[in-house]
């Protein structure tokens, strides 16, 4: 075939605006123009096209689904035609003003029609009585465009805004008005402001007023990379290749450009166009780009992508060009943020290999792949509802009823039998956030926070700020290494960067102040090793790496330990003074996720306290953060919003996870109309001595803090004993009590007593838990006088709470004597007066028998009998 013949040029219609579309399988190409017919071209054949008559004149849009196509015309009709007999079927929509654009949802069930009217109609292609009207916009819409999942619809309005609607079940809902992306264009202008959804579903792109193609991420509506096209006139059409690896743009300056989506570099420019191209369509599978111009001509440009770049088209779906792909940072978190069902492909996911000896291989791909194949694919029509064809919901989608309940969206990969892959927990750096726009927090704790901002992708700039502005000064530096992890404490800041083009991964420690000149140091990791997490304590620097090594350095950069982590791949690490906690993926648990295993060691004594013990998470929940409290106890925060601490962790085999706070049970959420989440920062003791959980409160569906920086909130611990509804009822009872102070309503009193009791129970278990924690800490460290005082206070607190509980039992009646005695036996009797006091309480309420028993107990304790009996 001669080179010139590559561009097949066909006169499709009379001179004038012409549009085209491919059928989903790419076998047929349909054009519509100013004259009253459509033409259907078969891909790869030079035969005369089939002509479909009975079409309106002056068509402005055409879309094709499996077995049908739909054309919109300036006379205000949108008509559906069958591809089986190439005949007119029905008029789907009538508008009072000319139709400007029609978009078909990917499943072929819905069309969106934009006309000169303000409202946009979304109509079911099978049943035109199902109709949704979108009318939040103030002016006419020029373009409509469905995303790859069919749940979002972007309208490019002539007022220069983009309106994004969500078309879930129920009423359509405008989720975002994007201002300042597109140019304000007349609805019949040649120039385009169409929203181009990237095939990976996480971003879209639009032509801008400055003739660029700007990409915007969908999750946070931040501008990402842009394609700086050199078009000298307005862009009239653009299209992502089916896998999103390439972008084609064209403009009224009669040139057509191909761009590499990953690098935003120009791959090829064709500037020999004869007329302005108005519509472009990539062939769904082959290296063909077809386009129509405003002269009625159709070009089927085979081998449009030069051979040296053609491999780009063969790739699986490529990620959209983000500044910082959230999928690269913490893939697990980023993917979870996407709406369920959104098609997203992570870069590391491999395309499925073809089945050996598949029908296609044996028979050749052409046998079944006729146009009817689209229909054949769903030749089982469930016309009597017997259920042999998959049920579809109101939106024309299969319901998820056929999926086992266990599988989360991420878990679907496991369904492919032999290619079983365990779900591993992604590594993360505690206290950091993923990129959002061009900023992210690298580290947030009670000392301060470190954040980075990317500057034009060549370097980052890092800012370290402190809560205590007197002792430390905030500083700021330009960062050519692109550090992506940081730790901060009172002594210094630790950074690490990933290996990049030739230079290995690096760890950089920068002390805040020294008495000599500043002794910051850098150390390189062996080539090919990347850092998964770093931690900084008062005396050590810890890094876990992709080679499963745990590397421990002193504060001045001396490597003192390197060992391989038993649980791998590494997830994260934390450090406090001499203690180092590392977490890695262990064996696969019941929910298909790897169980997380932790190891705690004391570096100074070279002693391992807990080896490969389990991080207790509930099924399908993930670890969000891990840190040491101010007092040096390990805490974890999981994705269900529970804060847990590790008890007895210095004794091998004795460690267990104790929930200290369940944020889902907080009273501020009791009303039920608040949606907020808590982003853990730290656990530290309040001035009053009670430990507090410090966190950022995030409103709505946010998962990570952003700018402006939220205010740190603190919550006291509350061991989950009763649910919110119980508490609410009790609160209501208390309110009632307040209102009816005078009349002695016995029921109300009873409720108050109950609520008092539950407060006391809460106080009891909390202070005894804290007591256990503190006493085990003190047993292993040299206690300060302050700590010893705190321990005594806790002991007294416990006994006091028990006394109050005892008083309540005594008040309740004689028959509760057994429970009262049980409460007395729980007393620690630290100062030897508590049993006396208990006796007095019993006597005061006239419980003589109980008093007798308490005295007995007292005597037994004096001789030391009681303890032995318990054993």
């Amino acid at each position, binding site marked *: 075939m001669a080179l010139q013949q590559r561009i097949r040029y066909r006169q499709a219609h009379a001179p004038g605006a012409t549009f085209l579309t491919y059928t989903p399988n790419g076998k047929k190409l349909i054009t519509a123009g100013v004259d009253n017919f459509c033409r259907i071209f078969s891909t790869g054949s030079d035969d005369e096209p089939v002509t479909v008559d009975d079409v309106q004149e002056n068509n402005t849009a055409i879309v094709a689904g499996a077995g049908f196509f739909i054309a919109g015309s300036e006379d205000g009709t949108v008509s559906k035609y069958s591809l089986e007999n190439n005949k007119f079927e029905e008029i789907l929509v009538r508008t009072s003003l000319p139709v400007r654009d029609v978009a078909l949802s990917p499943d072929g069930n819905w069309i969106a029609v934009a006309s000169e009217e303000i409202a946009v109609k979304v109509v079911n292609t099978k049943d035109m009585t199902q109709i949704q009207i979108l009318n939040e916009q103030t002016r006419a819409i020029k373009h409509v465009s469905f995303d790859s999942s069919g749940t979002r619809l972007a309208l490019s309005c002539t007022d220069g805004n983009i309106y994004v609607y969500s078309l879930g079940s129920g009423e359509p809902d405008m989720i975002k008005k994007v201002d300042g992306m597109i140019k304000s264009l007349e609805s019949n202008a040649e120039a385009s402001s169409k929203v181009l959804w990237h095939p990976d579903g996480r971003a879209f792109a639009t032509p801008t007023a400055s003739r660029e193609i700007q990409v915007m991420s969908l999750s946070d509506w931040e501008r990402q990379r842009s394609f700086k096209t050199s078009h000298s006139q307005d862009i009239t059409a653009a299209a992502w290749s089916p896998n999103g690896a390439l972008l084609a743009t064209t403009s009224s300056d009669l040139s057509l450009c191909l761009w590499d989506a990953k690098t935003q570099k120009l791959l090829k420019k064709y500037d020999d166009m004869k007329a302005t191209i108005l519509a472009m369509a990539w062939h769904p599978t082959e290296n063909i780009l077809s386009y129509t111009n405003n002269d009625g001509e159709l070009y089927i440009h085979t081998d449009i992508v030069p051979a040296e770049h053609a491999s780009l088209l063969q790739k699986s779906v490529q990620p959209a060009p983000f500044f910082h792909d959230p999928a690269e940072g913490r893939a697990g978190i980023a993917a979870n943020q996407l709406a369920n069902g959104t098609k997203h492909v992570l870069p590391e996911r491999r395309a499925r290999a073809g089945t050996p000896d598949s029908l296609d291989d044996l028979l050749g791909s052409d046998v079944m792949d006729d146009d009817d194949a689209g229909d054949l694919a769903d030749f089982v029509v469930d016309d009597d509802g017997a259920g042999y064809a998959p049920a579809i919901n109101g939106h024309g989608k299969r319901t998820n009823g056929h999926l086992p309940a266990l599988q989360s969206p991420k878990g679907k990969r496991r369904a492919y039998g032999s290619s079983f892959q365990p779900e591993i927990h992604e590594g993360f750096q505690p206290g950091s956030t993923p990129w959002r726009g061009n900023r992210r927090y690298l580290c947030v704790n009670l000392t301060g926070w470190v954040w980075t901002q990317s500057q034009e992708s060549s370097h980052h700039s890092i800012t370290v700020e402190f809560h*205590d502005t007197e*002792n430390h000064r905030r500083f700021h530096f330009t960062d050519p290494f692109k550090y992506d992890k940081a730790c901060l404490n009172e002594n210094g800041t630790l950074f690490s960067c990933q290996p990049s083009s030739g230079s290995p991964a690096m760890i950089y420690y920068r002390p805040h102040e020294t008495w000599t000149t500043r002794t910051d140091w850098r150390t390189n990791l062996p080539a090919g090793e990347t850092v998964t997490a770093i931690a900084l304590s008062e005396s050590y620097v810890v890094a876990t790496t992709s080679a499963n090594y745990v590397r421990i350095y002193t504060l001045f950069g001396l490597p003192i330990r390197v060992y391989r982590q038993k649980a791998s791949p590494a997830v994260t690490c934390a450090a406090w003074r001499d203690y180092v906690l590392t977490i890695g993926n262990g064996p696969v648990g019941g929910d298909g996720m790897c169980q997380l295993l932790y190891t705690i060691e004391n570096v100074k004594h070279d002693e391992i306290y807990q080896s490969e013990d389990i991080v207790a998470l509930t099924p399908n929940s993930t670890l969000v953060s891990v840190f040491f409290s101010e007092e040096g106890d390990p805490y974890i925060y999981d994705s269900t919003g529970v804060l847990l601490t590790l008890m007895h962790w210095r004794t091998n085999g004795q460690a267990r996870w104790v929930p200290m706070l369940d944020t889902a049970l907080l009273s501020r959420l009791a009303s039920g109309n608040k949606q907020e989440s808590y982003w853990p920062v730290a656990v530290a003791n309040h*001035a009053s001595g009670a430990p507090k959980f410090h966190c950022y409160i995030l409103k709505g569906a946010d998962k990570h803090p952003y700018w402006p920086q939220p205010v740190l909130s603190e919550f006291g611990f509350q061991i989950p004993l009763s649910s919110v509804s119980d508490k609410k009822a009790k609160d209501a009872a208390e309110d009632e009590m*307040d209102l009816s102070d005078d009349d002695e309503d016995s029921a109300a009193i009873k409720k108050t007593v109950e609520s008092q009791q539950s407060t006391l129970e809460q106080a009891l278990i909390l202070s005894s838990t804290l007591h256990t924690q503190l006493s085990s800490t003190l047993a292993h460290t040299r206690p300060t006088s302050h700590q010893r005082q705190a321990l005594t206070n806790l002991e007294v607190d416990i006994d006091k709470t028990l006394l109050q509980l005892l008083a309540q039992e005594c008040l309740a009646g004689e028959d509760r004597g057994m429970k009262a005695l049980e409460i007395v036996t729980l007393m620690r009797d630290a100062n030897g007066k508590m049993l006396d006091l208990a006796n007095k309480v019993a006597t005061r309420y006239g419980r003589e028998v109980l008093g007798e028993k308490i005295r007995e107990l007292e005597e037994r304790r004096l001789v030391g009998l009681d303890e032995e009996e318990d054993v």
Partner: protein
Amino acid sequence: MALPLPPGLTPPEIAFLCEMELVTVIPRQKLERLELLGGSLPPLNPPHRAPLPLWLALLLKRQRRANILPPLWLSPHSLTAILDHETEHGDGFSPPPRLPPLPSQNTLPFSPPFLPSSTADAAPDALPYHWLELGEMLLETAADDFEDPDSVRKLLRGLREVRMAKLRQVVETLDAAGGVNMNGVGGMEVAEGRTFVTGVIDGLRKIVTSREQQKKDRDREERENGDDYDDDEMEMQ
């Protein structure tokens, strides 16, 4: 002695009293425990929150040594709710914050300014006694610690107008033996309303007294006449 000031507390005096209220601050630098005449102040340890009296909080804020956390009732959401309540219920003021449960033993019951009614964890649904002056002072000094200072300012102004209008309205019922329920009225509102209300009451009293005077005069006249008559009768007897 001639005192140039009107009776009662003047607005600056009210504002001064309000500075005893506790507010929550997030310190930006360390400060040791302070033993003051009014009680000891907690040590400041950034970024831990601490309750401080308003005067100290404002001082530290001006020196950029602390950030003040506005109480929850100063959020636009709560203020809108309270303003709605005020406009819907024309006959009374929004209720004051609920008092904490009485301390058990023989300790003294708390009253403002020792109630934590303006700290970050105060009730979000009620205006405390010093709401107006506290809001004004915080907006003046610590506007950057509010999420949306402009709307807070607007709502406070709205609340003030609504409540002052109500206060002026109740004067109508103030003649003779009328009484007014002043539950929930703030300190500054009392100070502002005092001149007007007392003026009205004084005026009313004057009218009433002049009327009474007339009546008394008439009575006396009658009595005098009657006395004469009586005297006459007496004489007659």
